[in-house]
């Protein structure tokens, strides 16, 4: 049975088993109908021109895991940022693992989507925010139809979350192939502050397909600092759809580190709904083998006096392929917009490929918009300089690459993450850092 048919028939069973509000039922039904007509995206669509899902859709994924597998903290320890105190929301095969998690309801909510969807006290919030910024797109609609579990984080007015929140998704490989669809909702009300780290990881070599949707709402003057670490097994694929709605004076920054996985697609969409907003999109991609990473970004400037900064760096080795498809849209009224988009790439091996499409669509005249895209090699003169000072060529190359990628890390605000990513980059490139981190 094809995956699409399987999903459609599973939906019936799924709907019968859960007891939810009517509104949500309607949203789900509408979403599945949309998915039924649109199907999975294919390469004829402009946004999917360079990424084909055919290979990963062939697997016979189970939609719901048959039984719960218990894993211990020691199994996942290395994937957590354990050297700092954090809240943790952990899911195993898409199901909440309470013994591994640390949630809170004290000053703010960092808990589960399922309880938010079911409990009456969350009803007005769900009504106000759920599925409000995510548009009707086939994969997002599919996620909406099956939306049940995920992280629910709500920071009330004026509250700053005192420690970062980790959202961790693990798959145990209990099934031959598993498809999981986490649904996260993050609300930072006016003047609120929060830092979030999101990670997906497979613990075995069985195929996993994650189709995740995250909706983020940043209120007036709110500050959301979000990190996605994508360093999964070569058997896992991730389609990450993130939609961010920003109110005036808010700042949302999103760092995406893509080091692993078979196919990674990041659909990152910013919608600016007030003035004086800052949106920051940064990414480092270092892949090899036959890996494929696709960054598909949109920044929609809808109000005047806003800024956006995009900076994506990529290093592609062996037969890996990279895609950058960035779009900056400036509406007529969004005067004085300052938008910058930059995409720099290095190809290491002959068979590596990069397809880059930085786009600007501008309808306002008093704006400062620019983009730059480069594809090239390391500076031969810099290499020569280092070699003439006794640094072997291999290490000189690695150092230069490290410096190239490391640029993006300057804006990382959590020192532990910076340290980890720096180490990860050094490891990926094979450089022995002669200094302590």
């Amino acid at each position, binding site marked *: 049975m094809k995956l699409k048919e399987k999903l459609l028939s599973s939906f019936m069973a799924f709907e019968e088993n859960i007891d939810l509000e009517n509104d949500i039922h309607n949203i789900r039904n509408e979403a599945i109908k949309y998915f039924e007509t649109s199907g999975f995206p294919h390469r004829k669509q402009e946004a999917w021109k360079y990424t084909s899902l055919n290979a990963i859709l062939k697997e016979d994924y189970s939609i719901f895991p048959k039984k719960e597998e218990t894993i211990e903290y020691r199994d996942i320890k290395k994937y957590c940022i354990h050297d700092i105190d954090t809240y943790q929301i952990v899911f195993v095969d898409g199901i909440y693992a309470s013994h591994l998690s640390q949630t809170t309801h004290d000053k703010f909510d960092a808990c589960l989507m399922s309880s938010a969807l079911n409990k009456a006290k969350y009803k007005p919030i769900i009504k106000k925010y759920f599925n409000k910024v995510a548009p009707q797109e086939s994969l997002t609609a599919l996620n909406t139809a099956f939306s049940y579990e995920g992280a629910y984080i709500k920071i009330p007015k004026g509250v700053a979350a005192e420690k970062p929140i980790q959202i961790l998704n693990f798959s145990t490989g209990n099934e031959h192939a598993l498809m999981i669809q986490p649904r996260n909702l993050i609300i930072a009300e006016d003047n609120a502050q929060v830092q979030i780290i999101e990670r997906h990881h497979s613990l075995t070599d069985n195929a996993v397909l994650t189709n995740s949707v995250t909706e983020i709402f940043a209120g007036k003057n709110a500050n959301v600092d979000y990190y996605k670490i994508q360093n999964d097994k070569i058997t896992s694929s991730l389609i990450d759809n993130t939609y961010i709605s920003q109110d005036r004076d808010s700042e949302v920054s999103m760092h995406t580190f893509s080091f692993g996985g078979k196919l990674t697609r990041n659909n990152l969409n910013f919608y600016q709904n007030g003035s004086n907003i800052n949106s920051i999109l940064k990414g480092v991609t270092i892949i090899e083998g036959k890996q494929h990473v696709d960054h598909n970004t949109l920044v929609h400037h809808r109000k005047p006096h806003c800024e956006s900064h995009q900076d994506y760096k990529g290093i592609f080795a062996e037969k890996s392929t990279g895609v950058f498809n960035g779009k900056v849209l400036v509406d007529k009224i969004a005067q004085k917009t300052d938008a910058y988009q930059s995409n720099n790439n290095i190809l290491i091996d002959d068979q590596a490929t990069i397809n880059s499409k930085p786009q600007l*669509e501008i309808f306002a005249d008093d704006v400062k918009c620019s983009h730059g895209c480069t594809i090239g090699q390391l500076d031969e003169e810099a290499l020569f300089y280092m070699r003439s000072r006794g640094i072997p060529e291999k290490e000189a190359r690695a150092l230069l690459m490290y410096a190239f990628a490391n640029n993006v890390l300057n804006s990382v605000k959590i020192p532990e993450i910076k340290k980890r990513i720096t180490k990860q980059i050094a490891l990926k490139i094979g450089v022995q850092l002669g200094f302590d981190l």
Partner: protein
Amino acid sequence: MAYTEQELEKDLKDKEYEYGFYTDIKSDTLPPGLNEDIIIAISKKKNEPDWMTAWRLEAFKHWKTMTEPNWANVGYEKPDYQSISYYSAPSNQPKYDSLDEVDPELLDTFKKLGISIDEQKKLAGVAVDVVMDSVSVATTFKKTLAEKGIIFCSISEAIQEHPELVKKYIGSVVPPKDNFFAALNSAVFTDGSFCYIPKGVRCPMELSTYFRINQAGTGQFERTLVIAEESSYVSYLEGCTAPMRDENQLHAAVVELIALDNAEIKYSTVQNWFPGNKEGKGGVFNFVTKRGLCEKNAKISWTQVETGSAVTWKYPSCILKGDNSIGEFYSIALTNNFQQADTGTKMIHLGNNTKSTIISKGISAGRSQNSYRGLVKVSPRAKNARNFSQCDSLLMGNKCGAHTFPYIEVSNKTAQIEHEATTSKIGEDQIFYCNQRGIDTEKAIALIVNGFSKEVLNKLPMEFAVEAQKLLEISLEGSVG
């Protein structure tokens, strides 16, 4: 009195198409419609050999299976291909030996355009192959060229007299099945220019063709073929103006350039077809396929100044097949009122050490939409490819739009690609600075637009640079001085 932006905007709006007149010459026109019979009739009228007729029919057969593309960032009412007349030729055939025999009304037309043939003969040293509604009616300087062995004639003449060359090269760069409009053109093209530069010859003058669309309701389907043999050089100019029309006119031309080893072709275009009136009514649809093939060490340089047409859909491209070949693209696209332009280039790097440069300047005013769409592709076996692209947009007023859609596909690690784009408006302090020094706003804008486009204007041959500035002037009413 200070010249305010509102006044300027109003002036821009009110600017009528200066070259909007219509020459009344009897035309020999086929009934509207498109089918095998029409194609055979066109082919017969042109007295073409059988292989040419078969080639046209093959293209038509394929065209019927294709659908009109709609991926471009333009919106227009799709033309009804069955209501167009596919052949129209001035009836005063055959050709004239001297200018005196030419229909005086036609000569008058040229005078209005400022390209009077006799004047150009004397002054510019430009051979003009004037195309009046699809058929060449006057060719000058043919003798000088013939001495060098250069063939410069209409394509129908070339089909008669140099069938071996035409047969070998036609469709070799733009195959008849390439795209919807190329297929249509291949089936119904009525005329165009043919140019052949023999081995080692440097063409002593700029070759120039003026295209005009004249007969109401006649689509213009030009086919241009330029072949530069080994180590030869040619600079080719193409300029266009069209009279005012209320219904939309379709123009689907195909231009093929072939630069063999060490050859160089410079192809310059100034396009000023009727862009529609200020309500966006009428205007020419310009759907053109232009492509050049570079063999070893060859160079193709496209320069274009696009100020006309209601809808432009045009991507002059270079296939850099030979090692060390070079492709260049310099463009100014100016849109005003309701004009829409989706233009850019494709640089396909196939050979080693190939280089390409793209400089694109977009200026949007009024309610127009101006898009740059370009592709830079480096194939896995193209070593040391080098590309530099720069796309700048200038917006005038907040009712227009500027868009950039660059596609960069690189599969070779030795490639070095740079792309940058900026969007800006004319700064108020820039204008203030000029005002302060006694330059009025209108002139200041002219100065700034001129400076903005200078990089591209500089690439035009002398004869054309003047005209190009004139056309910018017409499109931005007196604001360019």
